[in-house]
């Protein structure tokens, strides 16, 4: 067995308790170990991605129990790619958190950060539906701590809402898994795929209920309308570097939809034929529409970026809901792009909020306006999908993939009008924040609260502003590289899509023990 597969889970699982127990009072050492851990994770992710490009599906049997009796981790092209994306995202964020001093505003930032990475990598690698639930819980528990990191009344209130919503999602997940188990008697995904295909279609009412419940759970995670209500308040009130890391969490939902509804309840399976795409596509279109309206209507930069995240999930799920190889290849490319772009915009929003507060209204000019404005401009171009950055390539691929689909007109209209509204919304926010300062007619508001805020900002200067800016440029570099190497990236995602739509390979790889 290839032990590299379990390394992305084991490494943070050892590092995080080590940081809590040994380095508890040494912030500098925590920072060193945390960055080293993320770099090591990136190395591991590159290694397993290189192994996955051969096209073999590798299986890691935990405790050497063969599937379907034990829990397996499965490394295929999609899981390797998602682990790589997680590591690539984590590196600039951990550097930014150090550079901006966010990790010093509460306890145990780095430990929780690594527990979160463990949960995310585990969710991407596991081949067992119940184990997927467990890793969801691991990443959620860590995210509760990160979400309320730094404290404050508003953040804690938003944290309560976030935890309640996600606990409800977890309960629903268990109901869905219980329903599916009661029909099939297994929770291993490959085994599920075989058993689901064998069940006669007239005997599957309960299984259909389970499939739709499971879709609802993943839609909560992916913030699909009408289950998106948790996202804007949580992301806008979380520490913004944490919100940037949470950009990968919505993608865990999208990943799970792609995995389960190509492998277990695939488009050809009689049980759920036409059921998933038919529901998911209108919801995705609405998600994109509401996200862009939210961008236009937000009065706070953090909320605006949170709505950007919702809009990009809408575009992503439109591509996923087409359930074709071309569209899935486009969706996988877009996952990579939208995660980096959302994270970049959250980091820029944090730079703005640290200096002038986040309200999208004219305010006193802030230091380093030019640099931050340029970064915001790059992020906005990427998010809106304008050339020359990868958002343009991604949206073009999605549009191209939807040609010939039954609802192509609606898809094109929503994506194009949505992009236009996004451009308007981001341009409005950018010009109000960066270009407008106080006019003579508009008296600067001088409430005591604002003074307190300014004092608070002045009291907590950035320890290493250079590092914070460097890490934001790291995220920009990621987007530029994704644009320059769009060809190889698309080749990879196309092969990934082919692999996803031939689930037989996955099933034989996982269940080979049974045949011997």
């Amino acid at each position: 067995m290839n032990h590299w597969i379990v390394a992305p889970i084991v490494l943070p699982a050892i590092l995080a308790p080590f940081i809590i127990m040994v380095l508890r009072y040494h912030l500098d050492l925590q920072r060193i170990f945390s960055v080293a851990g993320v770099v090591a994770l990136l190395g591991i992710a590159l290694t397993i991605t290189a192994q996955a490009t051969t096209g073999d599906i590798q299986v890691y049997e935990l405790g050497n129990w063969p599937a379907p009796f034990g829990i397996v981790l499965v490394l295929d092209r999609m899981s390797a790619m998602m682990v790589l994306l997680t590591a690539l995202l984590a590196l600039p964020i951990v550097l930014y958190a150090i550079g901006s001093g966010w990790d010093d505003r509460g306890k145990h930032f780095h430990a929780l950060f690594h527990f979160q990475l463990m949960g995310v990598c585990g969710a991407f690698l596991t081949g067992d539906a119940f184990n997927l639930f467990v890793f969801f819980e691991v990443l959620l528990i860590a995210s509760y701590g990160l979400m309320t990191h730094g404290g404050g009344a508003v953040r804690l209130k938003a944290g309560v809402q976030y935890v309640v919503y996600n606990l409800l999602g977890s309960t629903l997940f268990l109901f869905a898994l219980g329903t599916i188990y009661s029909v099939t008697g297994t929770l291993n995904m490959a085994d599920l795929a075989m058993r689901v295909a064998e069940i006669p279609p007239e005997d599957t009412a309960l299984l259909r209920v389970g499939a739709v419940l499971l879709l609802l759970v993943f839609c909560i995670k992916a913030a699909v309308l009408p289950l998106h209500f948790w996202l804007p308040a949580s992301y806008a009130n979380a520490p913004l570097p944490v919100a940037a890391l949470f950009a990968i969490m919505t993608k865990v939902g999208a990943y799970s939809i792609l995995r389960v509804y190509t492998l277990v309840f695939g488009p050809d399976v009689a049980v759920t034929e036409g059921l998933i795409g038919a529901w998911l596509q209108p919801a995705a279109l609405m998600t994109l529409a509401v996200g862009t309206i939210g961008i236009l209507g937000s009065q706070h930069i953090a909320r605006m970026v949170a709505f950007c995240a919702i809009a990009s999930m809408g575009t992503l799920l439109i591509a996923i809901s087409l359930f074709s190889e071309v569209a899935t290849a486009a969706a996988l490319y877009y996952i990579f792009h939208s995660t980096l772009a959302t994270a970049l915009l959250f980091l820029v929003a944090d730079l703005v909020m640290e200096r002038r507060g986040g309200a999208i209204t004219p305010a006193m000019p802030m230091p380093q306006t030019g640099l931050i404005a340029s970064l915001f401009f790059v992020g906005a171009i990427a998010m809106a999908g304008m050339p020359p950055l990868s958002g343009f390539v991604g949206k073009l691929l999605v549009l191209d993939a939807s040609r010939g689909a039954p609802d192509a007109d609606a898809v094109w209209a929503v994506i194009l009008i949505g992009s236009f509204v996004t451009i308007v919304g981001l341009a409005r926010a950018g010009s109000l924040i960066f270009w407008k300062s106080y006019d003579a007619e508009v008296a600067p508001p001088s409430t005591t609260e604002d003074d307190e805020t300014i004092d608070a900002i002045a009291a907590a200067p950035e320890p290493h502003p250079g590092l914070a800016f460097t890490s934001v440029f790291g995220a920009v570099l990621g987007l530029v590289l994704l644009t320059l190497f769009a060809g190889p990236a698309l080749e990879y995602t196309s092969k990934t899509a082919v692999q996803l739509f031939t689930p037989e390979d996955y099933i034989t790889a996982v269940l080979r023990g049974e045949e011997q």
Partner: protein
Amino acid sequence: MEALVASAVGVMTAAGIFLILRRRTFPVILGLSLLTYAVNVFLFATGRLALNAPAVLNKYKDVPYTDPLPQALVLTAIVISFGMTAVIVMIALSAYLSSKNDHIDMTARDSVDAPGEDA
């Protein structure tokens, strides 16, 4: 027995959903606890209900047995939901102490003016 278990799950779920729609954190947390009880009983029943049957196979004689897997699943679910309830109690308590009220919703001022800033 099936009717009893089914109605217990149903009643607990209904009560849980009613409670999580309340506006203060305490009833909401109670509602979440009821929902986790409901889902635990539900998971237990997914392996079919069997009375007086051990959760192990007997290779010497043919005796009834019950499915052991849901019991393992429900144990995991109990541990996780127990931990989660503790976490949300702590977060809700500190939210209550720092904002001086235990409403679950944020006022319009909270969510528009000062996201992320310590009010």
